[in-house]
């Protein structure tokens, strides 16, 4: 959390009036081990300093290198659009979303990943169900634990909460 957010891009439009900055062309956002890249990024900063970044790409690419003091899992992923809320370290992937972790993969229309703690939620789309691929323990070591959700539970009609198993 303490890391600054660094952004590189070809161009930028900065509005002092609204406080919104729009970056275009080879956009890369890095924050510590997290690296997001895409073609267009909009960053807004609320009056209390909260930063919200919305990234578009063909697709947006996500990479988070293993972090020594956490569970060490490297993450990669992609989506058509991504929202990153810096304050609570949440990645929201939208549109053909895929998140990979130690060989396991979560696919859905929408995926929400909590960078602190590693929890992942996946939501289906109109015509795309959530699909989770969990590698056998031997092949990939600790991975995302979650039940097979061919029939979504009655109370959670559109998504799967896959707590990070110990």
């Amino acid at each position, binding site marked *: *959390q*303490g*890391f*600054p*957010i*660094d*952004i*590189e*891009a*070809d*161009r*930028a*439009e*900065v*509005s*002092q*009036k609204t*406080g919104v*900055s729009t*970056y275009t062309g080879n956009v890369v956002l890095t924050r510590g081990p997290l690296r997001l890249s895409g073609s267009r990024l909009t*960053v807004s*900063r609320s009056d209390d*300093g909260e*930063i919200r970044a919305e990234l578009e790409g063909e697709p947006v690419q996500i990479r988070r290198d293993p972090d020594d003091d956490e569970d060490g899992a490297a993450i990669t992923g992609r989506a058509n659009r991504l929202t990153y809320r*810096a304050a609570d370290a949440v990645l929201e992937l939208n549109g053909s979303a895929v998140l990979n972790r130690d060989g396991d993969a979560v696919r859905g229309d929408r995926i929400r990943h909590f960078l602190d703690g590693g929890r992942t939620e996946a939501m289906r789309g109109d015509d795309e169900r959530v699909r989770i691929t969990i590698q056998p323990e031997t092949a990939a070591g600790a991975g995302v634990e979650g039940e097979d959700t061919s029939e979504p539970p009655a109370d959670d009609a559109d998504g799967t909460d896959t707590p990070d198993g110990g």
Partner: protein
Amino acid sequence: MRPLVLMAALAAAVVILLLTRGGSQAPDDTPVATTPEGSNYYLLDAQVRQFNAAGEPAYRIRAASSLHFPDESARLTDIRVDYPRDVDRAWTLAADEGRIPAGSRDVRLSGDVTADYNGAGRRDWTITTPWLWIRAEQEQAETDAAIVGNAPGQRVSARGMRLRFGEESLTLRNDVEVRYQP
């Protein structure tokens, strides 16, 4: 023949007298004004107000000195440019030197150019660059040089910028790098 010679000598004497009498008048002691560096006039502690097409005040330039040259160009030193369009939110530019080309109303600032944005409740900005054009007609400023900008919790660098005073926005043209501090 003798009277003719006498008449010519007399005429010559009169002419010489006139010429010398004119010279012996009291010397003109009014000081002849001199202007620096070939300028035809100059202003000290000058203040220039620029109005836009609608007659609204566009910007105001204050300069320690403003030299104006026969080709209608001008050179200013120690400049401050205020864009008071919206009284509480304004851009203030400062530079060591400024030049106004012949027949133009644009001003090229150079030498430690700074652009300060007083956000009045919004984020204040300070941008520095080695040179910058003020485009009077478009109420903009632009440069192709490197810029560095600072706002609370944010640092920006880029190559090339365009500032739109009225819209309170800016375009960073190339090689944009930004750091947001948490």
